[in-house]
């Protein structure tokens, strides 16, 4: 009887909503008839809804910012990535596809499996999950976010206390008045913050210790970016959806925390429209040293799991070393802060590591699958790309530039110093040196000495390094020069193509794209040409070698040079490389388009393997080929 009544109410509700929103109802009717919106599929992935139209509206609302899918027939992320104008205009992708996109021949696809969590956390109901003491911690810089947060909090499933750090007295006043009226809000604590410490500083200064009295805390902050002259809030909307707004997700998060004491911090997987390398340390490791010293964190990995954007749920005791400290605003770096590379950027990155160090696990929500998991390999989903898709991305540019080592060329045994070690072993046999390892150290030190002598400006060639080494080895410069050639030939012998990448180079050339190679390396231009020939690149290209032209990518001098050339030629340009800093971030800082590909070591690590030390020849021979094979194609989706 109760169920029948519920069905009648829901059906009536749906009928009323259809009449009130005829355009949505029409889109729903079309999408359902064509099977591109599948109610059963959607419920299976994203929870229960009162009726079909409610589920459709849920999808429409989320899909402007989030990579949820309406059915197996339509991949939201693929459509928005392929048609960035739709993303930037904030249009609902499925409606656009149905009414316009497919008639305009825009790219679309059925659901793509970019990543599948190896394990799944299932939320269980219990009598206690609503009893958890919860603090919602908001930092509000933009006044319009007061209403936005209030709308979300009014739907929150349990009672909460709200802590607000406001950028101005007027925001503080509005927040206090608005949040106090909300049914689920027990207490509201507000302060006006100083413009220092971005979103973290204010709550650490004012509320840090107090938060330790709660079972759970959730931190969000108002976030906008300007792009194409329009305010973009998709990143915030994505995080807000899966931290505070989506009832199914929020209830599941609270239940999972309640049911599993080992879970310490939660956030949705990194925003899908960020650069693929967003989970990399980039230039922030030096700023993380205090956290290593004080908390004993291990920051040796290049990629890491952290709440990108600084918004998360946590068990305060999992962050106790951070929250229990006494802070003043002076503890935080003053504005203006750089876009990247600061103590605050490092702090954002260590939150997950801190929770783990405290003995807790991180868990995540992956919207395309609608699953919670502790599987940290989700980073690989940002690096899912088939060779065909990569070619498609690159063919839109007049000039396509490639890094060389670990981009189009791989070393059989991965370790860059193995050629030096091989030479060292040969020199031991010849009685020139007594230890191969000591030779490698001397050889590298000679190169460093040359760099020091040049105040780390420009670059050093292998011949300059060996001239320097000749003093230590007590050999003539011409003998040193021969050793330099021998080292090169050991490396040449181990150079292999990254086959898919070499094929893409050839295909781009066949499409009459200009091919450039840009590399930071101590080899000469002639040596690099030999290497490229060995790996099967036999097309015309322009070659920029740092040791040859004394400009480097990592110093930015190479990119200044490249940028001026592309501007002179008036051609579009894109660069492909494996180094997050020099090939992607710094390149991008110069306004140059780029595609970051995975270094073999990083791909190996992201796939879930431990990085071997590679400090002995046995280890190099054992692990080198395996890593080289995994890294041959620099994305997942080979």
């Amino acid at each position: 009887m109760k169920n029948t009544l519920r069905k009648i109410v829901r059906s009536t509700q749906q009928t009323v909503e259809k009449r009130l929103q005829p355009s949505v109802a029409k889109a729903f009717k079309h999408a359902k008839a064509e099977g591109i919106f599948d109610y059963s599929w959607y419920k299976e992935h994203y929870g229960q809804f009162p009726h079909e139209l409610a589920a459709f509206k849920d999808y429409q609302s989320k899909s402007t910012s989030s990579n949820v899918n309406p059915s197996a027939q339509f991949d939201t992320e693929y459509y928005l990535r392929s048609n960035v104008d739709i993303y930037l205009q904030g249009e609902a992708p499925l409606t656009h596809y149905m009414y316009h996109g497919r008639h305009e021949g825009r790219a679309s696809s059925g659901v793509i499996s970019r990543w599948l969590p190896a394990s799944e956390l299932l939320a269980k109901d219990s009598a206690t999950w609503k009893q958890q003491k919860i603090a919602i911690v908001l930092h509000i810089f933009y006044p319009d976010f007061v209403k936005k947060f209030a709308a979300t909090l009014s739907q929150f499933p349990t009672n909460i206390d709200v802590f607000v750090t406001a950028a101005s007295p007027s925001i503080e006043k509005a927040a206090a008045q608005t949040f106090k009226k909300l049914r689920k809000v027990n207490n509201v604590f507000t302060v006006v913050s100083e413009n220092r410490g971005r979103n973290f500083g204010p709550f650490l200064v004012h509320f840090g210790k107090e938060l330790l009295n709660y079972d759970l805390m959730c931190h969000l902050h108002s976030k906008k970016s300007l792009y194409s002259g329009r305010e973009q809030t998709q990143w915030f909307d994505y995080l807000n959806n899966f931290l505070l707004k989506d009832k199914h997700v929020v209830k599941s998060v609270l239940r999972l925390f309640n049911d599993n004491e080992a879970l310490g911090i939660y956030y949705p997987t990194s925003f899908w429209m960020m650069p693929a390398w967003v989970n990399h340390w980039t230039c922030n490791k030096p700023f993380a040293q205090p956290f290593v010293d004080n908390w004993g964190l291990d920051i040796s990995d290049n990629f890491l799991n952290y709440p990108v954007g600084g918004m998360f749920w946590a068990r305060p005791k999992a962050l106790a070393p951070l929250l229990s400290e006494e802070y003043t605003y002076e503890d935080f770096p003053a504005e203006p802060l750089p876009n990247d590379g600061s103590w605050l950027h490092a702090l954002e990155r260590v939150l997950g590591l801190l929770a783990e160090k405290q003995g807790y696990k991180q868990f995540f929500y992956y919207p395309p699958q609608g699953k919670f998991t502790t599987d940290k390999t989700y980073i690989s989903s940002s690096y899912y790309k088939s060779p065909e898709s990569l070619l498609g991305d690159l063919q839109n540019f007049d000039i396509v530039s490639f890094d060389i080592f670990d981009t189009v060329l791989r070393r059989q045994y991965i370790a860059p110093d193995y050629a030096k070690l091989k030479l060292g072993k040969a020199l031991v046999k010849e009685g020139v040196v007594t230890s191969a390892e000591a030779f490698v150290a001397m050889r590298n030190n000679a190169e460093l000495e040359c760099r020091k002598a040049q105040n780390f400006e420009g670059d050093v060639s292998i011949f300059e390094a060996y001239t320097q080494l000749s003093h230590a080895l007590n050999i003539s410069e011409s003998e040193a020069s021969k050793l330099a050639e021998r080292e090169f030939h050991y490396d040449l012998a181990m150079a292999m193509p990254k086959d898919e990448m070499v094929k893409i180079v050839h295909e781009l050339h066949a499409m009459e794209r200009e091919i450039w190679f840009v590399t930071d390396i101590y080899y000469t231009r002639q040596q690099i040409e030999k290497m490229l020939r060995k790996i099967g690149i036999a097309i015309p290209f322009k070659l920029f070698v740092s040791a040859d032209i004394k400009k480097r990518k990592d110093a930015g001098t190479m990119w200044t040079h490249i940028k001026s050339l592309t501007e002179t030629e008036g051609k579009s340009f894109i660069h492909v490389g494996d180094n997050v800093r020099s090939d992607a971030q710094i390149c991008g800082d110069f306004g140059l388009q780029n595609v970051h590909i995975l270094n073999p070591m990083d791909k190996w690590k992201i796939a879930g393997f431990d990085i071997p030390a590679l400090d002995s020849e046995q280890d190099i021979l054992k692990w080198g080929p395996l890593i080289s094979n995994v890294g041959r194609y620099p994305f997942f989706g080979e």
Partner: protein
Amino acid sequence: MLKNISLYDFGYNFLGPVLSRYVSVVSEKLSQLPENKKVFHLAREGYALEKAFDHVMPNNVPSAYLNVSRVFLFRIMADVDASWPLSVKHGFSGTLAQFLHARFAFSQQEIDTLVSGEQQEKTLVLPDDYNNVCSILKACQHKIRELVKPTRDVYLRYLDTLGFAHHDVTPVVLDVGYSGTIQKLLTLLVEKEVHGIYMITTQTGSVALGGNNAHIDHVFKTDVKMGGGYTLLDRSMFLEALLTAPNGQFVDIIEDGNTNTFHFCYGKKTYTQENFSDLDTVLSGALSCVEHAHNHHIHYSLNDIETLFAAYVTQRNLLPRASWPLFVFDDAISGEGNVNPLSFFGL
């Protein structure tokens, strides 16, 4: 997609370390066995094992590929009481006729000569009806013997030509695993001690069979059961799908009338067997790893191979697209037909 390099590199990483550890430990274990030993690589996984074995010990120990299958041995020994605990006890549900066909590969015509039409329709559930089935087999034991003995005699002569049945040879069988049914049946058949060294076993140790022992040993793990959480066993379908000979299941043997040779008959081929060049490329990569490891004294620990295996069989995107069609294999004993582990495990 560059199929060849993709499959080669995948073979190096996925199969290479597994084969390398297996054959290197096997070579250590063989050194503990009697001098007169001869190694037999059991069909069909033995195709790859033989090649890996030859890389590590080309001349030290004689070895041969052995055409064999559980169903074939069940059939040619269906009249031997001592074989029934091995052939009949395995789970089954259906009519007696279906059982005789599925387990012993008897044709309908043969079944008609063994049991009445009424008996054929009787339903049975194994292992619960084990004694009942044994009574039925006992009742028609002579008729069964007439059917199977000629083939058994041919197979024994085949075993003799390989040296397996020779009195001064100690046969050692190599295979992936698990309970050593084929080894046990061979022990009964040739009436002598047979050793077996497997990757994984359900139980390592010696089993007495008709007055002789089957000595079962393992390289990776023992005392594990399917579904018990040991990934190498639970997802061994991925391994078995790749470790296969180019032909289907061994079903019969015919003696050539003019020479002292034999004709081997095989069943339906899987996709992988029909496209064997792809599988051969995977195997080439794996063997390159085995050779490299052997030449440079590289040892993969059990933890190394378990970690590598687990990563590949739980992450769809680590398995190259070119390899996906290869993960199909036929599971004759369970009667499940062709199984694709990618679908089976929801990858």
